[in-house]
C-alpha cells in the first residue's frame, strides 16, 4: 500500500520486521519476557549470554541503583550451552521472531565450540559475540580491548560457522573505532555497541563497596551520551551495520541512535522498569515516522545534520 510506513531493516543478512531488539542479559532466555509481551512483535530477541558450561555468577549483592541507571555485577550467570539447546530453544520456536544467541568464553576454543554448536541450530539466526570477557591466555585482558586478540577471535569464528556474527563492543577502551574496524576487517557482519561501562558504588556508612564484586557495569539513561557518541564515531568509520545500545528508554532515544548511524537498536535496562518497553518503543518509532511523514525508517539512518559543526572541536 502506498501509504504504509516501513520499519523493516536488514542487519547482518537477517530481515527484521522492525529495528528494535532486546539487549542480552535483560530478557533472560526470552521465555520470561514472553509472559508479558508477544515476542513476535519484536525485531529480534537477543538471549542471555551463554558459555560452554553453566556459570553460577557472582555472590550478591549484584546490583545497585545509580542516578539514572544501575550497576550490575551479575557475573555472567547462565545455564550453559547444553541447557539452552535442550530446554530453551525449543520453547522459542513458536515465536515469529529471529533469535540471536549471545556467546561468551575465556578461550578461543570455548568461543569456537559455541559458534559451531549454536551457529548450526535452526532457531538461531545470528550470534552476538560478547568480547568483554577476560582472555585467560593474555593475563585476563578482555578480547574486546585487545585488537590483536579480537581480530584472531573473529577470524576463527568465521571459520566455525556461516551464521552471521555480530561483535558486541565494550566501551571500556581508549579507541572503540579501532576495535570496530578490527572487527569489520576480521569478518564481523555487524557490530553492536555499547556494552556496560565499568563503574563502582561505595557505601560511606559501612565504608565498603556496595557490590560484592566491587566493580560492575553501568547501564541505563546515564550511559546514553557515551553510547551515542561511540555509535556516531563507529558508524562513520565502518561499512558494516551498527546496532546501537545504551540507555534507550523511549522511541525518541531510539531515533537519536538511528540519526547517529545505527541500523537497529537494542533495548535493555528499560525492561526492568517496564517489560513492555521494547514494544512501546516500536510503537513510538512508528508514530514518529508518521508525524514526520517519513515512509521508511532506513531514510533516517545516519541522518544527523552536523553542518560542519562538531568536527574537530576540542574541549
Amino acid at each position, binding site marked *: 500500500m502506498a501509504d504504509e510506513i516501513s520499519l523493516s531493516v536488514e542487519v547482518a543478512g537477517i530481515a527484521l520486521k522492525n529495528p528494535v531488539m532486546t539487549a542480552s*542479559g*535483560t*530478557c*533472560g532466555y526470552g521465555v*520470561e*519476557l514472553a*509472559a*508479558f509481551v508477544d515476542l513476535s512483535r519484536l525485531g529480534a530477541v537477543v538471549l542471555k549470554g551463554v558459555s560452554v*558450561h*553453566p556459570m*553460577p*555468577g557472582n*555472590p*550478591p*549483592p*549484584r*546490583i*545497585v*541503583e*545509580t*542516578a*539514572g*541507571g*544501575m550497576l*550490575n555485577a*551479575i557475573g555472567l*550467570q547462565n545455564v550453559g550451552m547444553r541447557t539452552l539447546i535442550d530446554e530453551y530453544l525449543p520453547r522459542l520456536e513458536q515465536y515469529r521472531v529471529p533469535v540471536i544467541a549471545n556467546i561468551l568464553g575465556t578461550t578461543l576454543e570455548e568461543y569456537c565450540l559455541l559458534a559451531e554448536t549454536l551457529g548450526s541450530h535452526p532457531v538461531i539466526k545470528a550470534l552476538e559475540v560478547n568480547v568483554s570477557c577476560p582472555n585467560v591466555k593474555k593475563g585476563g585482558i578482555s578480547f574486546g580491548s585487545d585488537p590483536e586478540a579480537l581480530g584472531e577471535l573473529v577470524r576463527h569464528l568465521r571459520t566455525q560457522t556461516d551464521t552471521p556474527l555480530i561483535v558486541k563492543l565494550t566501551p571500556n577502551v581508549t579507541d572503540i573505532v579501532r576495535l570496530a574496524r578490527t572487527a569489520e576487517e576480521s569478518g564481523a557482519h555487524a557490530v553492536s555497541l555499547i556494552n556496560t561501562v565499568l563503574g563502582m558504588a561505595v*557505601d560511606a556508612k*559501612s565504608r565498603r563497596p*556496595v557490590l*560484592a564484586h566491587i566493580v560492575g557495569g553501568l547501564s*541505563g*539513561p546515564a550511559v546514553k551520551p557515551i553510547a551515542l557518541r561511540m555509535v556516531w564515531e563507529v558508524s562513520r568509520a565502518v561499512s558494516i551495520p551498527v546496532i546501537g545500545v545504551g540507555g534507550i528508554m523511549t522511541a525518541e532515544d531510539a531515533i537519536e541512535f538511528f540519526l547517529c548511524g545505527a541500523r537497529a537498536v537494542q533495548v535493555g*535496562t528499560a*525492561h*526492568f*522498569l*517496564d*517489560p*513492555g518497553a521494547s514494544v512501546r518503543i516500536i510503537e513510538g518509532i512508528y508514530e514518529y515516522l508518521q508525524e514526520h511523514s517519513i515512509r521508511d525508517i532506513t531514510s533516517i539512518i545516519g541522518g544527523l545534520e552536523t553542518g560542519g559543526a562538531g568536527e574537530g572541536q576540542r574541549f
Partner: protein
Amino acid sequence: MKSAFATVLSNAPVAPNYFLLSFVDPDLSGQARPGQFLMVSLPWSRDPFLPRPFALFDVLEDGGVQILYKRVGRGTSLLSRVRQGEELRVVGPLGRGFGLLGGTDHAVVVAGGIGIASVHLLLKLCLGRGIRSSLFYGARTGAELIGLGRLESMGLEVHAATEDGTVGYKGLVSDLLSSALAAGDRRAETHKMRAFVCGSFPMMEAVAGVLERWGIPGQFSLESVMACGYGVCQGCVVETPGHRDRDGGPEYVRVCTEGPVFSLEEIRWSGYRACRGRGDG
C-alpha cells in the same frame, strides 16, 4: 502477570513512616496470591531509577489493591509523596507465594515490623478457609504494630511483642513464640502447625531456630534488592544450601522468581546475611 499503569486512590500514613497506598485493578486483585509482590515505580522517575518491590498487603472484592510500606530510603520517600490521582507503573503479581498445602490445621504466622505486609493476605485466606490462625506480631514499639485492633477483630489469636514494652510482651517476637510453644501441649499441638514468617533478617533467623527446635515446618518471605522483579536480570539472588555447581561453588536462586517465599530447608542463613544489600529502598 502484567505491566500496567495504576491510578492512586489513596496514599496515607497509618503510623509514623508507615503508609497504606491503594488503587483499583481487578485483574491484579483476582490473580494475587498471598506472599506475592508488585514492582512499583513512578513512570518517569530517573533518580530513583529502579522500581521497588512491595508485598501485596490486601486485595478487595471490588478490585482494590493495597500495599503497606515503610519509608526507609529514597524510593519509598518518593512514593510517600505521591497523591491521589497520580499514576504509578505496577508490574505483577510476582513471585512464589506462601503454600497452604492441605494438612495445615494451625497456621502460626510470625511477623516483624513491616513484615506484616507480606503475611496479611495469608491471614485473610487462612481465616476464610476456617484454619485456626495465630499471629505473633513484633515491632520496636506499640505504634508500629499496624492495625493491631483490626487484626484482633478478624478472628485471629494475636500475640503482640514490642521491644520497648509499650504493648504486649516486652522483648523479641521470636522469644514470645518460643514461650508460647513451651506453654502449650507439645505433642498434641505442634505436629499440626505450619509457620509463615516475614521480618528482619535477625528475627527470621531466630524464628528459624525456634521452628527447628520444635520440628515445625516453616516458610519464610525473604527480601532482596531488585531491579526487574520478574526473573530476567538475576540481580536478586540468594545462595541455596546443598546445591553445588561443577566447580564446587554455590548455586544461586532468584528471590523474585524462585521466591520470595522459601521453606526453611531452602535457606542458607549465612548466605542470606551476606547478600543483604544496601538497597536505598
